[in-house]
């Protein structure tokens, strides 16, 4: 059955249809939550909260084709709500095991992944949420802004600074005044 049909069925209270919708999305939603929160337990709580809210409010979703964007929005907000609620709690950093096999040919894979993880740890949850929605869940930036309830310019700004922070760490570009390289090729 296509997604629209499954959403329609789930909207009418069909648990199996909802579980089916969940199965193909759960891994990626869990990954996004772990990216934003950097804590496996908190990520689980956020996913759980978002999914329960999704099930409860599904009859109110007007356009079944917007299901993914809606679900991702619920997840992002659940993550940021958790951050707000637990602001004073020290968040334990759970690093993804770095001995997992790399699945692409990214240059210098292992070292870069460690550096990237380090760079992400230095970002605020709101910045990581933009990265997670845009780069991990493939959401267009205007949709990211809408999902997080922030102005488009703020989403652009967060993405720009998150990319800059990651680039500085991963590509080891010089931090101070950029060197002029007139005459070189792009």
């Amino acid at each position, binding site marked *: 059955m296509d997604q629209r049909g499954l959403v329609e069925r789930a909207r009418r*209270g069909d*648990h199996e249809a909802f579980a089916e919708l969940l199965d193909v999305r*759960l891994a990626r939603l*869990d990954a996004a939550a772990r990216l934003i929160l950097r804590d496996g337990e908190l990520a*689980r709580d956020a996913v759980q909260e978002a999914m329960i809210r999704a099930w409860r409010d599904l009859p109110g979703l007007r356009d079944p084709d917007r299901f993914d964007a809606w679900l991702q929005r619920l997840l992002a907000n659940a993550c940021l709500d958790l951050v707000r609620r637990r602001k004073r709690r020290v968040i334990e950093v759970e690093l993804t095991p770095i001995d997992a096999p790399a699945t692409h040919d990214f240059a210098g894979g292992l070292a870069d992944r460690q550096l990237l993880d380090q760079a992400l740890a230095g970002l605020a949850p709101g910045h990581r949420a933009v990265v997670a929605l845009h780069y991990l869940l493939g959401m267009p930036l205007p949709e990211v802004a809408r999902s997080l309830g922030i102005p488009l310019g703020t989403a652009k*700004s967060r993405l720009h600074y998150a990319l800059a922070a990651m*680039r500085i760490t991963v590509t080891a570009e010089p*931090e101070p005044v950029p060197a002029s390289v*007139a005459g070189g*090729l792009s």
Partner: protein
Amino acid sequence: MTSPRRFEQDLPALLADLYLAGTPDYRDDLVRQVASVQQRPAWTFPGRWLPMELVTTRVQMTRLPMRQLGVLALIAILIAAALAAYIGSRQHRLPPPFGVAANGVVAYSLAGDIYTVDPRTGATVTVVAGPEADRRPMFSPDGTKVALLRARPDTPDRFDIVVAMSDGRDPRVLVADPVSIDDTVEWAPDGTYILLCTTTGTLSRVDAVGSEPPKVLARGVHIFAGAFRPPDGAQILYEVDTSTSTALFVMDADGSHQTKILERPAAGGIGAISQNVRWSPDGRMIALGIVGPVGDGNVRIHVMNADGSDLHQAGDATGIWVENDVVWSPDSRHVAFNRWLPVASGGWEIRAVGIAPAAGGPIQEVGSVPVPEGAILEYSPDGTKLVAVPGPLVLAETDGTPQPPMIIDIATGTGTLAAWEVGSGTSWQRLAP
């Protein structure tokens, strides 16, 4: 070491590699928990029993009655004919690259083709059409050429930069790596080259008239629209981010003589620079967003002198606000920008576009309220109008549902939806005054 472009392209795969770990072990628990929760009945959602226009914040904007429009169009056609004859008689004259100029046509894209419209008459002309997906046209400062982004058929999220004459003749693909929709593309004041800055920080000049290979000016930098310093474009304004600060620099147009003019706290921090950085058209001032006391949920447009002195807030907003997407009036006296106010539910409410004196002072609200994400703003070359295009249209990689831009009359502050619709951002052609 990884190249910046490669880094950005590989980021989705890299993040997936870092964070995707198969179906989580709590899947079954989750399904059981969901099964124990009751769904809300459909009738409890307001949209199910109230007309949606009563429960959404959509704002209807003024439309001119068709009859009046017809009369106006007739008058405009007569005026346009007279103007065309006048302009035709002095075609050799070019406008200055910055400051006040006469209004030409407005370029825009729609369903992958490029059009121009005469805003006075509403008459549209197809400029570039064909099977290619073209978008985001941008007139050169002298109004004689137009640059646009053309999606690559194999990788639709990557674009070639195409330059053509303003009427669409002689299109040619510039020699450069394909760009992304988030890269900054900026005409040089004399229209001989394009300044290209990737989101990963490589700043290059790309020949727009010959076939010289692109020349990298700097790496690890970021430029904004309006980077060339008026009146001659001899300097380029750019930003450098580090883990401890964000700083504004200027360099000569050849990449030499890099000089820091302002240093602020690191990205997102209180007092940091927030995206909006633009030269005034007279080259004496710079407008920029500064993050306020509660982080990036509180941004104000500021203005300072070209050397970084006299940094002051342009408007008079107090409390928590976000001001963004600043543009200068051609006479350098005012700045216009989007504004958001937080609401109790935790979201943001867009307000009407604000115009403030560059010297600082009260904000004048103009036009109707834009879409929630804000509008991309552009002054008409003569400074009497402001075009507001819904932001999501401009930022998307493909043309979305066409929408009419709002044309704001500066003198009266009224906004009117244009009779023409666009699929991406607009560019207003400058003509000799």
